[in-house]
C-alpha cells in the first residue's frame, strides 16, 4: 500500500468540509424557513388537509295559520345510505337487503358502480329514502350481515293540517346549477333543497335556517375517522317560522267546496288584504313534497290536463265576464254627462252596425237604469253605456282598479293579465281593423280582456274599502314589506252607489246573485258568466259580506266551465261567506285583522 504525508490533505479537507457545511446549512435554512417562518401557514394548510367540516343541515322554518295552527312542520326522515367503496365487495349481501326493501338488484349495482374516482367512492349515496321504523329495526338487528350501510336522518317537510293550501305553501326541489351559481355566497350546496314555488320560494331566506357543522378527521382518501374533541359541533339554527294570514279551517272548508271543480277561490279581508282562504283547484297531493320532488312526478303534474301546477288565483288568466261591469259602472258614475237614473229599453238584443249583440235574457229586461242593469246584468244597457263613456275612459278606469298590473300579493311570479287600450287594439288589429263591436265585447268582460281572480278580488276589496286598492297579503309574520296601495280617487257617492247596486244584485228580486244571500249579514256582489270557446262558460262570483259588527270579507270565486251561468260560483260563495259571518262576527279586533 502506498503511503502519503497527511499535510497534503489539510487544504482539500478544508475545502470539502466547507462544501459539506454549505450543503447542510442550505438544508438547515430550508427547515428554518418551513418550520419557523412559515409554520403557521403550513399548520393551517395541514388542518384543511385533514379536517372536513360535515354539514348539519338546518331544518326549515315552520308555517302556521293566523290562529297559530300548524300548517307545515318538519319530521325526521331516515334514509338508508351506503359508501360505495365499502360495499363494492359485498354486493351480494346488499342485494339481499335490497330484496327485503324491494329495491332491484340492478339499481343497487348501478348506484355503487357509478360512483367513480377516489372522492366519489367515499361519498355516501342514498339507497332508499324514508324507510319505515319496522324496516329500520330489521336492518339494525341484522346489521352485521350488511356491512357498509348506515342511516342518514334529516328533517323533511310534514303537513299536519286538514287544509292543504298547496299553492300557497309551494314546494321544494333540489337546487339547480343556475340557482347554485346565484346563491353561491349564501351557503347553498349541491343537493340542497330550495323553495321552488309559493311561500317556500317567496320566503326562502326566512325559512332557511343556518347550517351547523361538525368537524371530522379524514385521511388522504377522505375516509371519515370520527369527530375531533377540541372542535365542538356548531349546531344548526332552525329557520324562522312564518305565520300566514290563512285560516286553516276556512281554507279546509273552501278546498272541500272546490273539490271536483277547476277554478279558484279567494277569501280576503278588504281593509288589510289578509287572505283567509286561497284555493286553486284541482291541486296536486302534498305528501310527496316531504323533500325534493322527483323530476318524473313533476313532469306528470306538468302534463296533467287539469293543470294541477297552475296557481289559478294569480296565474289563471280568465275573461272576467260580467263582474267587469263594475268597472264600466264606475266609469259611468264618474262621467258627469251620464245620468245613472235614465233608463233604456232592453229588447233582448242590440243592433250595432250590421251585427246583432244579444242580451243574457233573450226576452229583454224592459226599461232599466244603471243600477237595474247591474242587478240583472243587462248586456244591452252596457252596450249603450260604453258608447257614451268611450273606450278610453273605460280602459283608464280598468287600469285604476289595478287590472293590467300586479296586485302585489306575496307570492312569486304573479301574472298581470291584459287590459286592452287604444294603443293595444291598434297594434293588434291595426287602427282600422277593430271597431265598436270589439269594445262591446270588452265591456262585458269578454274579448281580449284577461284578468286573474286575485285582481277581481282586489277590485272588489277596493269597492268595499271605498277606494283603497289593497295589496293582498298571505304572510302576517314576518311583517310584509310595505307595498304600493293606491287609492282610487272617486267621490264617496260613487262608492256608495256601487255598493248599493251590488247589494241589490244579491238581495233584490231579479238580482243575479240571489244565491249568495245569507242571514245575519249584508252581502254585496256581482256575478259573471264568462264565455269560453272551449266549452261551458266560466262561472264567476265576486263580492263581500258585512257582518252586523261591521266586519267585511271579500270572496271571489271562479269555476272553470261551471255551467249554469254564475249559479255554481254564487252558491259556493254563500258557503264561504256564511262561515265568515259565523266565525268572525264577534272576534276581537286583534284577532280579526292582524296586519295593520
Amino acid at each position, binding site marked *: 500500500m502506498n503511503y502519503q504525508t497527511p499535510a497534503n490533505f489539510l487544504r482539500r479537507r478544508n475545502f470539502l468540509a466547507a462544501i459539506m457545511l454549505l450543503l447542510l446549512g442550505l*438544508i438547515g435554512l430550508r427547515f428554518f424557513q418551513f418550520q419557523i417562518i412559515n409554520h403557521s401557514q403550513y399548520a393551517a394548510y395541514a388542518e384543511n388537509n385533514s379536517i372536513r367540516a360535515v354539514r348539519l343541515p338546518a331544518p326549515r322554518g315552520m308555517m302556521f295559520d293566523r290562529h297559530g295552527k300548524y300548517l307545515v312542520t318538519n319530521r325526521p326522515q331516515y334514509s338508508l345510505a351506503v359508501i360505495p367503496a365499502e360495499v363494492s365487495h359485498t354486493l351480494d349481501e346488499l342485494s339481499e337487503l335490497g330484496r327485503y326493501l324491494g329495491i332491484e338488484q340492478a339499481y343497487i349495482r348501478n348506484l355503487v358502480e357509478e360512483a367513480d374516482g377516489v372522492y366519489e367512492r367515499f361519498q355516501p349515496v342514498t339507497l332508499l329514502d324514508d324507510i319505515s321504523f319496522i324496516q329500520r329495526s330489521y336492518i339494525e338487528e341484522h346489521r352485521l350481515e350488511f356491512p357498509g350501510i348506515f342511516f342518514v336522518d334529516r328533517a323533511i317537510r310534514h303537513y299536519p293540517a286538514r287544509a292543504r293550501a298547496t299553492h300557497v305553501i309551494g314546494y321544494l326541489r333540489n337546487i339547480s346549477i343556475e340557482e347554485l351559481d346565484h346563491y353561491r355566497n349564501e351557503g347553498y350546496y349541491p343537493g340542497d333543497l330550495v323553495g321552488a314555488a309559493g311561500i317556500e320560494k317567496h320566503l326562502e331566506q326566512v325559512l332557511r335556517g343556518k347550517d351547523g357543522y361538525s368537524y371530522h378527521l379524514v385521511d388522504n382518501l377522505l375516509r371519515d375517522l370520527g369527530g375531533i374533541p377540541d372542535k365542538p359541533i356548531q349546531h344548526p339554527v332552525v329557520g324562522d317560522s312564518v305565520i300566514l294570514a290563512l285560516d286553516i279551517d276556512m281554507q279546509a272548508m273552501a278546498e272541500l267546496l272546490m273539490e271536483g271543480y277547476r277554478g279558484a277561490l279567494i277569501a280576503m279581508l278588504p281593509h288589510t288584504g289578509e287572505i283567509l282562504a286561497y284555493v286553486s283547484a284541482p291541486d296536486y297531493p302534498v305528501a310527496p313534497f316531504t323533500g325534493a320532488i322527483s323530476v318524473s312526478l313533476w313532469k306528470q303534474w306538468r302534463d296533467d290536463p287539469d293543470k294541477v301546477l297552475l296557481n289559478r288565483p294569480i296565474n289563471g288568466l280568465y275573461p272576467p265576464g260580467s263582474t267587469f261591469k263594475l268597472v264600466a259602472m264606475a266609469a259611468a258614475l264618474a262621467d258627469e254627462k251620464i245620468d245613472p237614473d235614465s233608463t233604456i229599453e232592453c229588447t233582448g238584443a242590440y243592433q250595432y252596425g250590421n251585427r246583432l249583440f244579444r242580451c243574457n235574457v233573450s226576452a229583454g229586461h224592459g226599461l232599466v237604469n244603471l243600477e237595474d242593469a247591474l242587478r240583472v246584468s243587462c248586456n244591452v244597457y252596457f252596450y249603450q253605456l260604453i258608447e257614451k263613456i268611450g273606450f278610453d275612459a273605460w280602459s283608464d278606469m280598468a287600469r285604476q282598479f289595478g287590472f293590467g298590473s300586479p296586485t302585489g300579493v306575496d307570492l312569486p311570479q304573479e301574472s298581470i293579465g291584459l287590459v286592452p287600450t287604444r294603443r293595444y287594439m291598434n297594434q293588434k288589429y291595426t287602427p282600422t281593423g277593430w271597431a265598436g263591436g270589439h269594445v262591446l265585447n270588452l265591456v262585458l268582460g269578454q274579448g281580449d280582456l284577461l284578468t286573474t281572480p286575485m285582481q277581481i278580488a282586489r277590485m272588489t276589496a277596493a269597492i268595499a274599502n271605498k277606494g283603497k286598492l289593497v295589496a293582498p297579503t298571505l304572510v302576517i309574520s314576518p311583517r310584509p314589506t310595505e307595498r304600493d296601495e293606491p287609492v282610487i280617487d272617486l267621490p264617496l257617492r260613487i262608492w256608495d252607489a256601487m255598493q248599493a247596486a251590488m247589494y241589490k244584485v244579491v238581495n233584490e228580486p231579479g238580482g243575479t246573485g240571489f244565491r249568495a244571500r245569507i242571514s245575519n249579514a249584508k252581502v254585496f256582489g256581482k256575478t259573471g258568466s264568462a264565455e269560453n270557446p272551449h266549452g261551458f262558460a266560466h262561472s264567476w262570483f265576486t263580492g263581500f259580506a258585512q257582518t252586523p259588527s261591521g266586519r267585511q270579507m271579500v270572496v271571489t270565486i271562479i269555476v272553470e266551465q261551471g255551467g249554469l251561468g254564475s249559479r255554481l260560483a254564487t252558491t259556493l260563495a254563500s258557503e264561504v261567506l256564511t262561515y265568515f259571518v259565523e266565525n268572525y262576527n264577534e272576534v276581537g279586533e286583534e284577532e280579526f285583522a292582524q296586519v295593520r
Partner: protein
Amino acid sequence: MPKFVKVNAGMISWDILLLIPVALLLFIGFLGLYSTSLAGPLISSSFARQIIWLMIALFMIWLLRWLHPRFYYASAYRLYAALIIMLLLTYFMPAISGGRRWLILGQFRLQPAEIGKIFVVLALARYLTDYQKYLHKFLYALVPMAIAAGPALLIIGQPDLGTGIIFIAVAFTMMYWSGISGFHIFVILSPAISLFTGFNFYTFSLWMLILVLVLYFSKFRLRWNVAMFAGNALFGTLALTLWNALQPYQQRRILTLLDASSDPRGAGYQVLQSRTAIGVGGVFGRGIGEGTQTHLRFLPVTDTDFIIAVIGEELGFLTIMAILILYAWLFLRLLDRASTTQYRFASLTIVGFATILLVHVFVNMGMATGLIPVTGLPLPFMSYGGSFLLTCLLVVGLTNYLLTGET
C-alpha cells in the same frame, strides 16, 4: 482467501467519535420508524424489520473483522467486475414496479447498485492509489471518470437516476482528493455543465464564453482546445435530445421542482405534503405519533424516502438541527481521519464513503424540502430499507477496519 484472514482481530480500535453520531442518528431514525409503525401491528412493522436488519448488519460487520484491510485493496477490481456483471444481469430480470434494479433468486432479492456504491469506491481508491504518480497527465485523470461512469450508466438505465448520480459525485470528490489538478477536473466536468446550460441559449452562450477564456489561459495544446470546445458545443446542443430521452416521470420530477404546488396530486403532491408535514412541526414538533400528515397518510412513503418529514412533523426543528449537526460531525470526523491517515488507499476510500453519505443526506433532505427533484434516495441510518442500512453501516465498519493498525 486465507492470506487475508487477520489473526489479530482483537486489535481493532473502534473510533468512538465516529460511532457516537451514527448511534444517535440510528436512534432518532428508529423514533421516526416507530411513529410510522403505530398504525399496524408492531411485530410486522417496518420498525421491527429494521431492527432485524440492524442485527444482520452488525453481525456482518462482526464477521468482516477477520478480513485484513489489505483484502479491500487487493480485491477492489474483482469486486468491481462482479458489480458490472450483476448490473448487467439485472437487465434480464423481471421488472418490479417499472424498474429492473434487482437480482432475483427465488425469494431473495438483491439490489447490486446498493452494495455497488462501496465496490466503486474501492475500485476508484485502488486506481487513484496505484497511478498516483501519473495523475497529473490528463488521460490518466480521465480513467476514474470511466470507472464511475460504467456502473453509473448501467444504473441510470435500470432506471435509477439518483443512485447513478451518486457514482459521478463520488468519482469527482475522490479525484479531487487524489490530487488531480482542479483544471483537469474542470475539463472533465465541463460536458455536464454544457448539458445543463444547453437548455437555454443565453446561459449556454455565457458558459461557452467562460470555457473559451479558461481554455485560452490554459497550458493545453491548440488541438486539445479545439476538441474541448467542439465537444462541449456538441454536448450542449445534445441537451434537448437527451432530455427527450428521459422517462416522462423523470422529466416530470425535474419540472415539478420548479413549482410543486401546481400539481398537488402528481409528483408535486409528495413534495407539497412533505413540506406541509415539516412546516406543521414547528420548533418542538407535535410529538411522536401525533403527526396528522403522517398518520392520515397524506404523506406517502413515510418510512423510506420521507422519514425526515415524519421526524420534522413530530419532533420539530430542534431535532432536525440536531440531526444536521450529527451528520456534520460524522462527515468532519471522516474527513479528519481521511486527511490524517498515512494509508492513501484508506484515505481515498473514506472520502468516497463520506461522499456517498453526504450526497444521500443532501439529496434526501433537499427533496423533502423541495430543493431538488424527488429522486428516491433514502436517508442514511434513518430511512427504512435493509440493504441501504447495511451499506451505511458497512461504510462505518470498513472505515474502522481500514484505519486499524495505524495507531
